[in-house]
């Protein structure tokens, strides 16, 4: 492994293998603190509000929402596309960065994948309640039925969506669980409680870390990453087909698949930053999820954000260049019509504000990055709102034109699903190792070979890390250490 001395180390401070285990397993074994309880209870209450609103919708029907004959898709599908998009960052970190051998992913992949799974769960909820009769959801699945030879219409993008989202969810869950098995075994061997030993042992599937099984594990991870990489690109492409295969101006564009995928990764990284900047602080994981990690993720967010900005420009250009008056009208109406405010929120949050990421100060200051990520989250939600509502509300026939106002039930569902997402995330960081312990250990020596850390990483190391460093904590790095120190002098 060749390592540039100019790269920041992945783990700040000296760590032994057992110290890594303890730092991460501590949160699983210990009792949650007051901060965890406050966060969890607030999230659970917000979730309860969302559940009540959903139950009300199911009893009353879709009439509980502000939809009308012109605008049949609004908040609900906006939320659906938003949450599917959030999931994409997790798969990018866990699969695509594995294929690219990006070692920094080891500190963030577990929580990002968890976020993916929870986000897809949130997303899946929306088409379900939008059906109006959610108990008939199995009509979307190819199950033998009593209607003779009538099956689903596989030519419809909505049908493709069913398969894409459920495949995405299943594969992400399997990938996540696969990586969790060794760490569950670590918790099983660490915990002293009987219930914990049984439960973690049950889900650890009898893992012992045999060399042959590790060899298979690595191959399986690599192949799963290879399968998940095109999968994640296909999912948001197919979501975009829901719009692009229609004949509605503003939706009917070939740019949609890449535009949606870039937007998905953009919003997903914003959400990863939102969660991890808080989690690293609350769980004292700053040595593992370092400022370097935040910096890299901010750069990816920036790159995808620029692609999104380019797509906004391309859309406008193509509307003008196509010479199609309907297309031209829709885009002028988007920016300067009655929903123009939402368009400008989108542009400011997604294109203008993220330009601050060019400054290193912003990339390496957690609170600045956190505020920025919130703006991107808001902006990306509005992007979907703009695409869906402004395209629908004025179509070819002016007598069809209408306005859409969400009801308080729709607001409650929007906010409530955030509650569901955060509740699941709080449960995850309490009951499961939030960082992939085994994977982190496997990159530990790659990243710290007796180098002056301050000289390398440019920011000072917290003093508590230095004091706790004992000589026996320093791992023996093998002959490479000697070779490298010779090179240094």
């Amino acid at each position, binding site marked *: 492994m060749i390592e540039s001395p100019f790269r920041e180390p992945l783990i700040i401070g000296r760590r032994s*293998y057992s110290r890594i285990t303890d730092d991460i397993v501590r949160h699983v074994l210990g009792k949650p603190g007051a901060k965890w309880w406050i966060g969890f209870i607030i999230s659970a209450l917000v979730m309860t509000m969302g559940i009540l609103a959903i139950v009300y919708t199911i009893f009353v029907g879709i009439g509980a929402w502000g939809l009308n004959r012109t605008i049949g898709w609004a908040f609900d599908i906006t939320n659906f596309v938003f949450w599917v998009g959030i999931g994409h960052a997790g798969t990018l970190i866990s699969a695509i960065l594995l294929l690219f051998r990006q070692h920094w992913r080891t500190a963030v992949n577990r929580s990002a994948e968890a976020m993916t799974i929870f986000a897809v769960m949130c997303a899946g909820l929306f088409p379900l309640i939008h059906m109006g009769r959610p108990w008939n959801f199995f009509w979307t699945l190819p199950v033998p039925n009593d209607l003779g030879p009538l099956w689903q219409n596989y030519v419809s993008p909505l049908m493709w969506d069913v398969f894409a989202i459920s495949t995405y969810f299943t*594969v992400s869950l399997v990938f996540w669980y696969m990586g969790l098995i060794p760490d569950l075994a670590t918790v099983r061997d660490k915990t002293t409680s009987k219930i914990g030993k049984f439960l973690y042992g049950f889900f650890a599937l009898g893992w012992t870390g045999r*060399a*042959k099984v590790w060899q*298979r*594990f690595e191959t399986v991870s690599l192949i799963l990453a290879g399968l998940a990489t095109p*999968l994640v690109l*296909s999912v948001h492409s197919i979501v975009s087909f829901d719009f692009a295969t229609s004949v509605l101006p503003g939706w009917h564009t070939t740019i949609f698949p890449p535009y949606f995928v870039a937007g998905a990764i953009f919003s997903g990284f914003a959400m990863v930053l939102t969660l991890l900047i808080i989690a690293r602080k609350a769980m004292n994981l700053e040595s593992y999820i370092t400022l370097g990690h935040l910096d890299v993720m901010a750069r990816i967010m920036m790159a995808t954000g620029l692609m999104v900005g380019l797509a906004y420009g391309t859309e406008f250009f193509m509307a003008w260049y196509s010479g199609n008056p309907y297309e031209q009208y829709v885009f002028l109406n988007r920016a300067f019509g009655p929903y123009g405010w939402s368009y400008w929120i989108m542009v400011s949050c997604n294109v203008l504000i993220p330009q601050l990421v060019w400054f290193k100060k912003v990339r390496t200051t957690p609170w600045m990055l956190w505020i920025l990520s919130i703006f991107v989250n808001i902006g990306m939600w509005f992007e979907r709102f703009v695409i869906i509502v402004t395209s629908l509300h004025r179509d070819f026939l002016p007598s069809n034109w209408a306005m859409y106002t969400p009801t308080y039930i729709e607001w409650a569902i929007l906010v409530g699903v955030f509650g569901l997402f955060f509740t699941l995330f709080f449960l995850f960081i309490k009951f499961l190792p939030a960082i992939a312990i085994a994977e982190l250990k496997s990159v530990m020596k790659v990243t710290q070979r007796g180098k002056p850390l301050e000289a390398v990483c440019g920011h000072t190391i917290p003093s508590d890390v230095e004091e706790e460093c004992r000589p026996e904590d320093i791992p023996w790095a093998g002959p490479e250490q000697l070779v490298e120190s010779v090179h240094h002098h």
Partner: protein
Amino acid sequence: MEALKQKLFRKFLRMAPCVVAVYDDDDKLKDALRHMREANFEVLDVLTPFPVHGVDKLLGYRHTKLGYAAFFFGMLGFLTAGALQIITMWPYWPVNIGGKPLPPLPAFVPLFFELSVLFASLGMVAVYLLRSYLLPGMSPRIYHPRATDDRFVVLIHEGAMFDDIKRFLEENTKVEEVRQDVYVQPKGLLPLPIDLNKISRDDL
């Protein structure tokens, strides 16, 4: 009863007297494995808390064939997608959509892809879990309580030469601990209702 127990053990478990050698670092482990290979030790297994690169080569393991399983199940998914879409939308209930030809193959591409990926992932992971005897409720034999934390364990076939092995390891490798134990590894797919940790050298 005792005879039956012995018979079951023999049927479902591979058991052998073994020497447990514990190391506290992965580089020491790899160094020790090199010495063991030169001394022609029969290494039964190596347990590590994380994938240590190069161990599989030192043990002479061949590359895993799980990729073939993924390919097989992927093809199965591809054929399933074809059967599902073509049969239901062509002979069963042909629908004229915009006068497009039947079967509408280009529109089937997304499902061909999704089902191939789904089958390949699930099938490969199932084969991996079954082949490695990783099943819910399995109770593994724990050779060292910190083998999933920071200790690296080598299980060597004893062959009634414990003292020789011990001396060799202490002289040539940076071993932390050497002791006698029983190597127990399931060889059947059924999850065994016995606690593998209760097996002692008397059961051999």
